[in-house]
């Protein structure tokens, strides 16, 4: 038995390809990104060693600071809107309403669509002249609220966040739904005998019992916000005047539009460091042992 499961050729054959591919690429990428981040380099020829110059520049760059603040804001907003909404929907759906399966399926649809489709669709929804949002506002007689949602510096950021939240509510709803469903029926029934139904049951039985999942989702949305890219890229590409920039969109445009390879790499190292630190900090904060990220 031991001999068979210790077969060295088989082990190598089984694990080596993925370990080399995965470990190799991740390791190579981080080392190289860090190396590039120390260079003043436009992508052509050799870069000039600049020490930590790019990092210093980064923390003095107002656009970068705004992008970092934006991603934090996105994390906080999703935490306080998307998660409560998802939890509410999950609680309702698990309380035995009609059409449980139907609603679950419908709420989850946006999750399966690509961010490009959703982004393009919301571009049309927000279109100042022919978009559905301004049309509905017009039809309701609220013409004073009509505006160029993504073009106006005052509304652009929040307008760019809405589709992100809209897309992901279903996902967290499903995570909450699944964990509420996995609460043992006996507990719920026993509580029912003691008079805990509806809201009481939700607040005193269900929510406390799915706390680990709530924590996991909180970590999820915050880390996810640090990495947000697709939707911002499609909707605003960081504009107007960098109002909606997030670190990854700034990294992307620094490298591929402005040819600042060194500076862009410094931002990518920042994103990596931020995600790891945030994950560690949140796990500590929530004292979750083997939580999932």
């Amino acid at each position, binding site marked *: 038995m031991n001999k*068979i*499961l210790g077969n060295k050729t*088989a*082990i190598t*054959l*089984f694990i080596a*390809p*993925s*370990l080399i*591919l*995965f*470990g190799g690429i*991740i390791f*190579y*990428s*981080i080392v*190289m*990104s860090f190396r*590039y981040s120390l260079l003043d380099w436009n992508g052509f020829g050799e870069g000039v060693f600049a020490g930590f110059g790019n990092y210093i520049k980064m923390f003095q760059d107002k656009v970068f600071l705004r992008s970092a603040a934006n991603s934090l804001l996105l994390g906080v907003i999703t935490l306080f809107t998307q998660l409560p909404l998802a939890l509410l*929907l999950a609680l*309702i759906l698990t309380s035995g*309403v009609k*059409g449980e399966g139907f609603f679950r*399926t*419908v*709420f*989850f*649809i*946006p*999750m*399966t*669509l*690509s*961010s*490009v*489709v959703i982004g*393009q669709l*919301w571009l*049309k929804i927000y279109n100042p002249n*022919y*978009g*559905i949002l301004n*049309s509905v506002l017009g039809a309701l007689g609220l013409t004073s609220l009509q505006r160029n949602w993504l073009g106006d510096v005052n509304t652009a950021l929040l307008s760019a966040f809405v589709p992100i939240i809209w897309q992901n509510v279903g996902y967290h709803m*499903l995570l909450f739904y*699944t964990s509420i469903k996995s609460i043992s029926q006996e507990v719920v029934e026993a509580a029912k005998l003691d008079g805990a139904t*509806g809201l009481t049951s939700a607040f005193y039985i269900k929510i406390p019992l799915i706390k680990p*999942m709530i924590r*996991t*989702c909180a970590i999820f949305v915050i880390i996810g916000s*640090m990495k947000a*890219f697709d939707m911002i890229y499609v909707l605003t590409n960081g504009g107007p005047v960098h109002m909606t920039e997030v670190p990854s969109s700034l990294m992307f445009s620094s*490298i*591929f539009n402005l040819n600042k390879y060194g500076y*862009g*790499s410094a931002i*990518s*190292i920042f*994103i990596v460091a931020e995600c*790891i630190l945030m994950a560690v900090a949140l796990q500590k904060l929530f004292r979750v042992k083997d939580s*999932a990220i």
Partner: protein
Amino acid sequence: MSEKLKSRKGNRLVRLITAVFLLFWAALQIYPLVWLVFFSFKSNEEIFGGNIIGPPMVWKTGNYANALLGGNVFRYLFNSVWVSLVVVAISSVLIGTSAYALSRMRWKLRKPAYWVFVSGMTIPLHATLLPLFLLFRKMQIINTPLAIVIPYVVFALPTGVLILTNTFSALPIELEESACIDGCSVYQMFWRIMFPLVRPTLAAVALFTFLSSWNELMFAMTFISDPKWKTLTVGLQSLSGMYYTEWGPIGAGMVVATAPVLVIYLILSKQVQNALVMGAVKG
């Protein structure tokens, strides 16, 4: 008695409110998609002439012909399908075998190897964009499908390996012991006995991988600029640039891009939901 009656009345009110709320939210999630289908059939005159919200007065199917033929959408669709399938095939083999080695086989560096995959989950993939771009350019595989297949496989590995490792670990050791007595080789043990038992989990992982590859944007648009190899997400981006002032064909392209995934989802909704939940819970 009256108290009970009151609470029953209250219940009915609560039920009504929750039903309205659910319907409202469902409408909010679905209507944009319905609207997309509407304008994919509309002419510019209708869209810009006042009929914004409702269904098209005249259903203009020509938009679809425009998008599919003029906009190359068929090509992009085909590329997305086969790239995603290749990624699923390669990653499934790698995930299945390495998870088996990590969970059941006996070797010294098992723990560290496992941690490589775990740590890989926290590291955002953004950091690999530029290094891989430069590496692939040097290797001259930029602008070929390989340039996106490799990163997609790599991205699929950590979650998949962790999920499958858990699944393998949960299987009783007696299975292998009895196979061992029957004189099985390790390959037979893996392929004939253990692999079939994790197939449902692997299928869920595959579904998850398929969706992520299908929807990926950042790498696809950086590594592929040749229209011959563009995938659907990137193709749609360029389509919207091409038909900037014409909503119909863009809408048609988006419907065509969305329909296959949506149909798969509606047929396999349980499995898709499970797959995505699993990615979060066990990953």
